[in-house]
């Protein structure tokens, strides 16, 4: 967590996927303060979306933040993705789903609540920095 699912009617080039995955990570972490190693982005392709929609982004995020933060996150995410992908507001749909951190296990540990990452020893010890990532081109 977070797990962002990006759905498009057509396949995106690899370079665009990388850009988008990084953008989503930067926006999410920049606003929430969450560690980058938490941010998963998955791409589904060849989907039939609503008329006129070129991309759908569904964010599964940890529960425990304010409604204002969630709204800000969704709006900023939309704005930045539209900028990057050169989409209008109507061509992008976003939705968020909140789930308690206590229901998620990553790195063999239950996720910390939002804002308590600094208390999380396993995270401070370098969770996800090497082992779960492939060397990228």
């Amino acid at each position, binding site marked *: 967590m977070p797990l962002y699912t990006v759905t498009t009617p057509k396949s995106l080039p690899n370079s665009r996927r990388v850009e988008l*995955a990084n953008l989503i990570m930067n926006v999410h972490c920049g606003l929430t303060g969450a560690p980058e190693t938490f941010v*998963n*982005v998955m791409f589904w392709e060849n*989907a039939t979306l609503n008329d006129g929609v070129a991309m759908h982004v*569904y964010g599964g995020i940890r529960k425990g933040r304010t409604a204002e933060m969630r709204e800000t996150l969704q709006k900023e995410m939309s704005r930045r993705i539209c900028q990057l992908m050169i989409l209008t507001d109507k061509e992008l749909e976003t939705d968020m789903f909140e*789930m308690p951190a206590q*229901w998620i296990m*990553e790195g063999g540990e239950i996720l910390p609540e939002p804002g308590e990452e600094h208390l999380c020893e396993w995270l401070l010890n370098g969770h996800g920095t090497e082992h*779960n990532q*492939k060397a990228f081109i």
Partner: protein
Amino acid sequence: MLDKIPMDQIISPMSDYYIFVAGGQTPCPITTIISYAPDSQGVKKQFTVYQSIYFLRWFHKKSTKGEDMKSIRVMCTIQEGSLGYTKIKQLESSIKDIYQKYFGPDYKLVFMWLTLPHGQAYLAGKLSAASSVQLPVQDGLPASRRHPFMSEVCAKWQEITGCTQDQIILASSDFTESEKFQRGLVNRFKPSKRKSTMLKMLMRFMMGRFKKGYYNTSVTL
């Protein structure tokens, strides 16, 4: 026919509710499923899907061996080519055993394997090698029971696959919330295409089972 099937039944194909509405009696139409072709259109396509629904009913009754079993849909998202048949069947068997050990023998786990083609999953902005599992549990389960269960599942996953602890992400949410999450995923599709999209995925899961021995399909629709 398709319009008469509520969405709930299509997104939970293994639930009793779905099977109930599918109704009717027919022998197992395996040949019908094999004859399904992606380029089929119109009447022929609908007829084929209809027959497949009867197959689901037959399969579910045959596999649950009783009316009191509760079906739990387990969604596993893995990297394409990362796990073979033997490991997948070991995972299915072991996780089922753990689940029944913690929550009783009345649960039947139905594993659905979603494969991610290379380049379609990222963690921290880089290609990811992690697998994620959605394994729902009963609503309101206290952390004192939920967390040991989750730890055991993750440990078993590591033992069988040989992955590191960072390469398995487990979500054990309440049933109700898990269904809401899945519904959110379905809602991204155009309303008039949701049923047909879900049925298409269902068909592909089943074709995957015939080909590989377990329910599987790709996230590329």
